């Protein structure tokens, strides 16, 4: 038990630098990770699917996929994992850290880019660097999926309109025969720049060492 603890503490120290969490936060998240994985080393999609609270979430599958997406690991790989370890779990979670009073403007910029990148990866499911119309339609469909009997038409119309808007704001002078292939990362950033992602896309990570052991299993 003792040896295991010192080893995990050592790992945790590495992770502090990599992800920016504090040691207490990492310990809390580790506890949660072990809860989810049933005390194993890795978790798979099934583990995440079995979180009951997620059942009501319309974009459940996208969220789960995001954990297994290699692009969210700050590396340059594409594709997805089958199972992930604690480090990967933490890396994904680090996208949701809030800025502090001490974060400088450049750091905030980087943070914002990271978060927008995360969202982009969630939409761009085939990894080609563009969100095509089909992918965007899927996004809107999923978003409306739990809202009752929404016809496909409605979702498509909304996605089309949104896509049109992106195209118009970013490439205003297209000829009638040009084809707008998809939303690139820059365009995506452009349309979301008013939303101030760095302040919005975060959750509160617990500092105090009291994990809510909600055995939601």
């Amino acid at each position, binding site marked *: 038990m003792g040896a295991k603890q010192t080893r995990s503490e050592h790992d945790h120290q590495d992770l502090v630098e990599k992800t920016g969490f504090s040691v207490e936060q990492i310990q809390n998240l580790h506890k949660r990770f072990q809860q989810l994985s049933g005390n194993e080393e890795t978790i798979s999609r099934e583990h995440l699917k079995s979180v009951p609270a997620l059942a*009501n979430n319309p974009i459940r599958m996208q969220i789960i996929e995001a954990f297994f997406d290699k692009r969210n690991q700050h590396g340059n790989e594409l594709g997805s994992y089958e199972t992930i370890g604690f480090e990967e779990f933490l890396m994904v979670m680090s996208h949701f850290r809030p800025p502090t009073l001490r974060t400088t403007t450049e750091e905030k910029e980087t943070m914002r880019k990271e978060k927008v990148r995360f969202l982009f990866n969630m939409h761009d499911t085939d990894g080609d660097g563009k969100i095509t119309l089909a992918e965007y339609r899927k996004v809107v469909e999923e*978003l409306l999926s739990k809202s009752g009997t929404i016809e496909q038409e409605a979702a498509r119309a909304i996605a089309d309109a949104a896509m049109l808007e992106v195209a118009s704001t970013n490439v205003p002078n297209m000829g009638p025969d040009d084809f707008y292939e998809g939303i690139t990362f820059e365009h995506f950033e452009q349309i979301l720049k008013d939303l101030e992602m760095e302040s919005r896309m975060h959750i509160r990570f617990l500092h105090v060492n009291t994990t809510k052991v909600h055995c939601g299993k």
Partner: protein
Amino acid sequence: MKHLALLKSYLGFHLIPRLSNIVPESCLLIVVGLLVGGLIKLARENVPPVLDSQLFFLCLLPPIILDAGYFLPIRPFMENLGTILMFAVVGTLWNAFFVGGLLFALCQIPQAGLDIGLLPCLLFGSIISAVDPVAVLAVFEEIHINELLHILVFGESLLNDAVTVVLYHLFEEFSEVGSVTVLDGFLGVISFFIVALGGVLVGAIYGFLAAFTSRFTSHTRVIEPLFVFVYSYMAYLSAEMFHLSGIMALIACGAVMRPYVEANISHKSHTTIKYFLKMWSSVSETLIFIFLGVATVEGHHRWNWIFVTATVILCLVARVIGVGGLTYVINKFRIVKLTTKDQFIIAYGGLRGAIAFSLGFLLNKSFEMREIFLAAIITVIFFTVFVQGMTIKPLVELLAVKKKQEAKRSINEEIHTQFLDHLLTGIEDICGHYGHHHWKDKLNRFNKKYVKKFLIAGERSKEPQLIAFYHKMEMKQAIQLVESGGGSKLPSAMPSTVSMQNIQPKHQPAPPKPTERVLPQLPKSREEEIRKILRTNLQRTRQRLHSYNRHTLVVDPDENAFKDLILKKQKMIELDRKIKEMTMYLTVPAPHQGSPTMSRARLASGRNTDFIPAQQQKGNTKSSDPQAYNIKPASDAMPVIQVDLASPQSPDSVNLLDEIGKADQEEEQGLMMKPPPGLSGSDKHGERIVVNPTDNVSVPSE
């Protein structure tokens, strides 16, 4: 007298634009009030007490608060609720005790020559400590600072009413009694909770009642706004009757009923409510400031230099220390921290106003200190409104405080806001801790499942927020487009040549194509509305066309004029085409006729609105409409408008060129343009418009 004053102030203010840049409206109004009061005093011996507290609290204040509550931006308010409450409750308490206590200490000094007991001092402190919503609204409206600061100061000014009410009544009673025990203090705290929560509860109950009533008003559209006003006012009166916080009741009522009422009522009622609220609150605000000016001149105060200056200084100091201290504590819990600049604006925005005055006025006439208090209160009000009100604008510029962003909510932002909500809720669930988002999500689901079904009539109850937003946007854009004169460009929102075909992937399988490219079926009521707007717009354009005709074509049909006319017609066609293009969005199939979504779009003119637009295109080839005709597959797959030559002309249909044709025919016999097929609409998109040949047309020879 009242009317004169109002008239004077509006004329003066709006005719001298430079003045309005420097001096906030509230200042000017007070000055007008002073003038009026002065005039009256000259005319007769004593000025009638116009700012009667009864009048103020029962008639002048509610409209302003209702306007604020009904249009309260719920999202930022809820997100910052903790901070707002801290400022409102703790901040006001701090202010009251600081000012009251130090004034009492001042009175102890024999040189001051004042002899005021502790409790009266505290009473005074509680009156003067509350930030005033009317003054804040009046000043902040003109400086356009960012949403966060606005909601913080404004929210604080609204929620501190509960504190003020409790403190005021407590100290007033205690002043009579003369002493206070710990038990009394404890009871005071309890009564605060009762007053605040009770007020909110009363407001919420009335809000739900109003929402429920609006569910059944589909047959009595005209009186819908009345329900909103009546229920809100009843909420206010009920709360005041039980000595609960009327302001909080009003806010709660407005905020609670709004989403449901708006889903139920017609578009016209919605507009009515909006404009009535704005009108009433505007009038009230003006009157309040003017009366403040008159009341100043009226007399009934005793000026005491020491007391007054001490009050002003102490108020400022208390505010600064209070805001600073509280922010330090609050920032420990906030994610988006408040910077020093923010703190400064919050402190500086702590304006006092007419509520303080009225509370002072309410004091028992036999209360000896009343007149000194009133003098001090008025001075503080004047100071904050004039000095702080006037200088806050340049200070905002100087400090480069973030300004309000243009609220041009795009569909992408809406999609991603919702997406983010779900994403963050999901992450919280995975993390296992029940935070902010989790509870918000639960509330939303509860709302959707039970409350909406109960309070919203018909189909609308199931409409998800995204769709509702989308409908609203379509409407707005369509109307905007037409009202912009139908110029050759779409309104500035989309100054681009991108159209649907640019984003449709070329290699899509054939079947979806026809339905995509050919004009989709417009929801009928929306068509109707657009058509009506087109028609009215057309009237205006028609006049322009006529001026061309009269002067040029009649006398000498020279080539330029001819071409100009063709150009105008082409513009009409462009307009029509753009409308159709716009309505590419409107591919949402119409829910059945009875839905309030469509009803709202319907211009409630009592006309039969389920006619079939015979002359217009029909996109849905699956339509079983007997009057529909088949669309020939377009040659280059852009929308084609064809008019069935044989079908009878329905009285409601509008064919763009038809109207022009008819108009010309009426006015200028025999001089009419009929764009022959092939000449007119052949712009690059290959659109063709055919006019019903039963019109009397003749083509002047060229």
